[in-house]
């Protein structure tokens, strides 16, 4: 079956390419050893470090190579997708370097160093946010430019594609989580099953209630209420678009809903991880599942999961509890990709109900192929890289160190895609839209549905399926 030429498919290819290159480590081929990683720093000169001793390059040269490599593969994708090559290259150049500057700034020791690291770095205080603070810096930079200097965004416009970056990142992330999953297969099985169970509940309860509220109390027509319910309750932009197509809504309807989804996702991204740190340090897995169930859009959800993991691990460390890196982010990501996996199925169900019962038109039919057409293909990449690494780690014990090296190298690019996602989410979040005439009613139902219902029911579902799960780390 021919794959469509979409950002989604190109995210899959790009993620798989980086994953395949990282696997060179298994054959003693250090294909990504030139990449550099950010370090927690006090002096700028120590902000970057090599990931491998193979090439012996200066760090700045490694960073320039990373830029050139990503520019080349993303430009190739952009060309196939029909984006203007020159404007994409210019835009990406700005997106990359601004994002990376934010990433490095977030690694400043006074922002990032955990209490345990302070002595080694020779500092007496720090915010203890870990290097992931770079994501927040990037988001704030994007929000500032997007809302106060909109003309500066015009130059980057062609490369402001947060969904593309996060989807590529999630494909790479699958491999990294696969290696970590091998450390405790029972935990992995439980996360997969409970994540699946949680999203089944979310689909069935969220959508029905939000649709009812939009129709009954806010007086929205079916054409507006269905994409709105999917946008608020399921998975933001992708779900709103899939639902709009399934019920044969005009294209402008899911587009309007999507613009709200992005704005509210940013609010969630800025608030929920910190709320989780304040109230859920004792239930880290609940916090992680909550991010996957409550925060809309792939970018904001997985990004929230990453920040929540960092914040809670640091807070738990101060309380003498050790939470390994991996299971928390795996929980958020698993919940999110399962939600994505079922968008096509849900859209298919809605299409059947609309075409045959709600608004029947002569000769109109629904094909099961719509499930495949609306399935975000990058989720296949996530499961593939996860399964490959899990299989290798479980069956080829003698290559454990090589798998770890492959995972580390892939992770460098994954983090880079993450930080570009944060920055570009900020750029596209135009809060002035909320004041646009007429959209207030949409925004109100969104706010009521999200903050009055979805967040709390998501927390309840997360608690039901993941409460006490962290004990697996401490027993």
């Amino acid at each position, binding site marked *: 079956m021919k794959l469509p030429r979409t950002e989604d498919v190109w995210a899959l290819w790009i993620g798989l390419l980086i994953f395949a290159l990282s696997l060179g480590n298994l054959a003693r081929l250090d294909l990504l050893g030139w990449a550099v990683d950010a370090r927690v720093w006090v002096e700028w000169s120590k902000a970057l470090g090599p990931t491998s001793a193979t090439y012996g390059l200066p760090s700045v040269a490694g960073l320039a190579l990373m830029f050139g490599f990503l520019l080349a593969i993303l430009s190739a994708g952009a060309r196939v997708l029909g984006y203007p090559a020159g404007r994409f290259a210019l835009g990406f150049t700005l997106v990359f370097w601004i994002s990376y500057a934010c990433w490095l700034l977030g690694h400043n020791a006074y922002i990032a160093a955990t209490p345990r690291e302070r002595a080694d770095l020779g500092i007496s205080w720090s915010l203890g946010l870990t290097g992931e603070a770079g994501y927040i810096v990037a988001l704030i930079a994007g929000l500032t430019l997007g809302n106060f200097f909109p003309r500066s965004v015009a130059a980057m416009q062609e490369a402001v594609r947060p969904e593309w970056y996060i989807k590529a990142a999630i494909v790479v992330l699958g491999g990294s989580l696969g290696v970590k999953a091998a450390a405790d297969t029972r*935990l992995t*099985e*439980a996360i997969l*099953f*409970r994540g699946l*169970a949680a999203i*089944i*509940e979310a*689909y*069935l*309860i969220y*959508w*029905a*209630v939000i*649709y*009812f509220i939009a*129709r*009954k109390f806010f*007086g*929205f*027509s*079916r054409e*507006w209420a269905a994409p709105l319910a999917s946008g608020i309750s399921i998975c933001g932009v992708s779900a709103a678009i899939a639902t709009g197509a399934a019920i044969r809504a005009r294209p*402008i309807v899911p587009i*309007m809903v999507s613009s709200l989804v992005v704005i509210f996702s940013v609010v969630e991204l800025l608030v929920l991880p910190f709320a989780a740190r304040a109230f859920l340090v004792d239930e880290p*897995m609940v916090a992680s599942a909550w991010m996957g169930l409550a925060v809309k859009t792939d970018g904001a959800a997985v990004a929230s999961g990453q920040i929540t993991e960092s914040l809670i691990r640091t807070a738990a460390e101060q309380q003498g509890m050790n939470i390994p890196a991996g299971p928390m982010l795996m929980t958020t990501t698993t919940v999110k990709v399962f939600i994505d996996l079922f968008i096509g199925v849900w859209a298919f169900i809605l299409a059947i*109900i609309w075409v045959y*019962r*709600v608004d029947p038109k002569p000769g109109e039919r629904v094909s099961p192929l719509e499930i495949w057409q609306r399935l975000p293909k990058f989720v296949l990449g996530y499961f593939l890289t996860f399964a490959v690494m899990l299989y290798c780690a479980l069956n080829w014990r003698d290559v454990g160190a090589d798998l770890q090296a492959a995972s580390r190298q892939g992770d460098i690019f994954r983090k880079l895609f993450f930080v570009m996602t944060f920055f570009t989410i900020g750029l596209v979040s135009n809060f002035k839209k909320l004041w*646009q*005439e*007429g*959209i207030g*009613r*949409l925004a109100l139902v969104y706010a009521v549905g999200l903050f009055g219902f979805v967040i709390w029911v998501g927390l309840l579902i997360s608690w*039901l*399926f*993941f*409460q*006490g*799960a*962290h*004990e*697996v*780390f*401490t*027993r």
Partner: protein
Amino acid sequence: MESHDNQLAEELAKLPHEPLLPVEKKLIAGSLILGLALLGILVWLSYTFFPLGN
């Protein structure tokens, strides 16, 4: 684009009332009933076959 936005704003301000059809009510009720019924089953399956420290 601005006039398009204005048209949409106008449309959103004057949406005609569409009463809930029986099929919509069935969809909402069926989804909630199934969700609540599965909740118990899935929680039981999770804690029985996929225990996690608890």
